[in-house]
């Protein structure tokens, strides 16, 4: 059974999209829903740029000697792909688009706590993005998104300064967004909306915001130190100047590993909503899922050293980080089991968002299980810095975070636009993405197991077959990404009118009109039940 769009629904005459017109009404808006659109358009642009870089990389790897570009160009491609996808697509994707749109609606408020700060966050984000794009246009940067020293500070002969500056600036956008969300969730919940009545999406956004506030300052500081060494030759990381290159890795991964959870925690929140709605059930073990988010956020700060098992770090340090890395796997496993159990005796429909959610669980499970290999010090010694790592983190970041994001976009699209997209196309593209994804990154696990290093522009000929398979899969994945872009844009204007609650979902955001009025609710709601009261009639 798919979403019921009966044709009897009508659009509200005035809503946040048509309340006023003109570019000023968008670029100077303080409405969280319009700011969400600003982010949506910006990150879609960045996704296309990062995706084009990946396309060129996969094309190049069809031939062992490089089918397309010189190694120096290839190195710039994977660097910009990583920087854009991590800092300018994945990190803002669910928090800044769906979080911005939904948090006030879900807590029953008229806006976030600091609407002007929210707009400022977007401008900071765009400034950071512009500086990063400038670095690409002014010759590109070839250090890898990890900026390892002393390569980045002393030896790289590319636009490192502007790339580091772009990352530095964009961090402040995340910090301010996190601050805004934390205050909104604490102070602006509608009467009766207690913590344990909150949708799980809000728990995960809360955990994400804490990571934003604690981790982003560290990357900002690290980028400043990097720029100081590169520009003024202050000896911090380069041993030739009296510095320590391992110090950089500690700082970078102290930010970098929590950052991974910034990408996947929001997707976990989205998936919790989707599973509940499309099984018509409250989430199995609500409090276990909620506290797992908090546990993941806390533990994420204690595992950074597992990026450094072969860096020359002491073996005792390695063992401690290995233990914490195993520990962080437990709450993730608890979530997967609870989602699966929610399906039990549910009323399961196969609408497109649900296909994304089920795809997420499958891919995240594989990404998580391969994480156990990397947490095992002995195993990591061989697979570290190979394609095994590349495959693993793409299963988490693309299989996990991007599937969650697309699932969320498909789920809340009728709320954002008031219109529904064609379900058949949506289901088809969800299936294409799942299949294409596995064909792209599945062979990379094998390549890594056989020892093919990551970041290689050319490679030994025996690895060609698996690389061609990966590139072929990527072409299917690309088609899967282009189709939604087309039908979503089409549906925003021509799609059938969705009505306030096309999925029959619970939650405050579905009690107001689609699209909602600028003030979200005519009257601030009074909450008398939990977010997943699917047993209650009506």
């Amino acid at each position: 059974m798919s979403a019921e769009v009966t044709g009897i629904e009508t659009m509200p005459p005035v809503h946040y999209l048509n309340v006023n017109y003109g570019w000023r009404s968008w670029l100077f808006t303080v409405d969280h829903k319009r700011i969400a659109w600003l982010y949506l358009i910006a990150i879609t642009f960045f996704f296309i740029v990062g995706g084009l870089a990946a396309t060129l990389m996969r094309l190049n790897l069809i031939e062992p000697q490089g089918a397309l570009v010189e190694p120096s160009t290839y190195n710039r491609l994977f660097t910009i792909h990583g920087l854009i996808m991590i800092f300018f697509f994945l990190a803002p994707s669910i928090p800044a688009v769906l979080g911005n749109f939904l948090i006030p609606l879900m807590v029953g408020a008229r806006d976030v706590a600091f609407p002007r700060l929210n707009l400022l966050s977007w401008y900071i984000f765009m400034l950071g993005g512009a500086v990063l794009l400038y670095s690409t246009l002014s010759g590109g940067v070839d250090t890898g998104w990890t900026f390892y020293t002393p390569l980045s500070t002393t030896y790289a002969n590319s636009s490192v300064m502007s790339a580091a500056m772009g990352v530095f600036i964009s961090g402040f956008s995340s910090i301010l967004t996190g601050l805004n969300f934390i205050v909104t969730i604490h102070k602006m919940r509608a009467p009766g909306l207690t913590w344990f009545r909150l949708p799980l999406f809000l728990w995960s956004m809360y955990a994400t915001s804490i990571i934003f506030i604690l981790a982003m300052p560290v990357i900002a500081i690290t980028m400043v130190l990097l720029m100081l060494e590169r520009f003024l030759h202050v000896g911090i990381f380069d041993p030739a100047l009296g510095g320590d290159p391992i110090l950089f890795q500690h700082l970078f991964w102290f930010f970098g590993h929590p950052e991974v959870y910034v990408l996947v925690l929001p997707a976990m929140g989205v998936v919790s909503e989707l599973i509940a709605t499309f099984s018509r059930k409250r989430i199995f073990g609500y409090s276990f899922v909620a506290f797992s988010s908090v546990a993941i956020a806390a533990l994420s700060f204690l595992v950074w050293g597992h990026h450094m098992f072969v860096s020359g770090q002491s073996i005792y340090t390695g063992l401690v980080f290995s233990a914490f890395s195993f520990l962080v796997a437990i709450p993730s496993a608890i979530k997967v089991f609870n989602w699966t159990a929610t399906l039990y005796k549910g009323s399961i429909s196969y609408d497109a968002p649900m296909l994304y959610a089920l795809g997420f669980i499958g891919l995240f499970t594989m990404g998580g299980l391969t994480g156990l290999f990397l947490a095992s010090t002995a195993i990591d010694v061989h697979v570290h810095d190979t394609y095994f790592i590349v495959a693993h983190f793409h299963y988490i970041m693309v299989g996990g975070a991007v599937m969650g994001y697309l699932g969320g976009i498909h789920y809340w699209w009728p709320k954002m636009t008031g219109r529904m997209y064609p379900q058949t196309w949506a289901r088809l593209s969800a299936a294409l993405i799942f299949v294409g994804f596995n064909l792209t990154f599945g062979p990379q696990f094998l390549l890594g197991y056989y020892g093919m290093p990551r970041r290689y522009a050319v490679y030994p000929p025996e690895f060609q077959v698996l690389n061609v398979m990966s590139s072929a899969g990527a072409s299917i994945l690309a088609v899967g990404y282009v189709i939604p872009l087309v039908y979503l844009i089409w549906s925003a204007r021509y799609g059938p009118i969705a009505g306030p609650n096309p999925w029959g979902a619970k939650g405050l955001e579905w009690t107001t009109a689609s699209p909602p009025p600028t003030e979200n609710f005519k009257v601030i709601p009074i909450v008398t039940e939990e977010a997943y009261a699917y047993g209650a009639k009506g």
Partner: protein
Amino acid sequence: MQSEPTIHFTDASSWATQWQHLFNFLMGVSIFFSVLIFGLIFYFAIKYRRRSKDEVPPQIEGNLALEITWTAIPTALCVVMFVWASGLYFRNAVPPKGSTEIFVIGRQWMWKVQHSEGVQEINELHVPVGVPIKLTMTSQDVIHDFAVPEFRIKEDVLPGRYTSEWFTATKTGRFHLFCDQYCGTLHSAMVGWIIVMEPTDYARWLSGNPVNKSIADMGAELYVRYGCNTCHSTGLGPPFVGLYGSVVKLTGGQTVKADDAYIRDCILSPSSQRVAGYPPIMPTFQGQLEEEQILQLTAYIKSLSKAEGQGKEAAKQ
């Protein structure tokens, strides 16, 4: 010759075999849980598909016994993995006593190998089968990584310090050597071969090389050429006989073990770890000595810690 190149991937070191057992265990656990989760999702999604528009399924809050079960079982499995992996990692962290030491220097974008017997190689490393080999590694510029997939070994090669890794090859043949830490433009060209030979073939290969000086002998030449002897053989600076491996007392009152890293630090920044009782007169050799020359000097100093070395030292004076 035109046949399709096939992937050559074996367990070619003693460690690789132990590694493979643990890997297979992890694969088993992963496949079990993947099948379990995928199976349950498919089963539930089909069995409990929505049959009517107004269906209201029974609401289940949760189940504490289940939560405890699926927390405890993964935790127990994680403990097993942690103990197994850590034990393996820990036991193999230190090379066996009497390992043959070979020196590796990484630079953008090549591997330089220096055998104790004096033979030097570029992007190739010849070793005998069945003999534990310890690699002492450093970099001249950025961070590199010396990885041999068929030995399942890998360790970063850092500028400004020594790292090491070891292996005992169990098969003869040619095995890929990769730089696994991204090191700049031609990172993917920083590759080479490990050539594992029968000990007799290896001995023949070593003797077939035109070098007739060990690296300790090369170090002894540098010792004179750079004027080290003017102080260190006259009592103005601390003597080198018996130095290597001993515990040295520094001016600050601390003590330090005289190992490769200590000797390297003393050559490059002499004031940082000055031996108690000697004046601060030694100049730095930063920028004057190549990494391999430092290794040669270290090998020379090391040779003086043996009885045989004392004769040489005496002969110089």
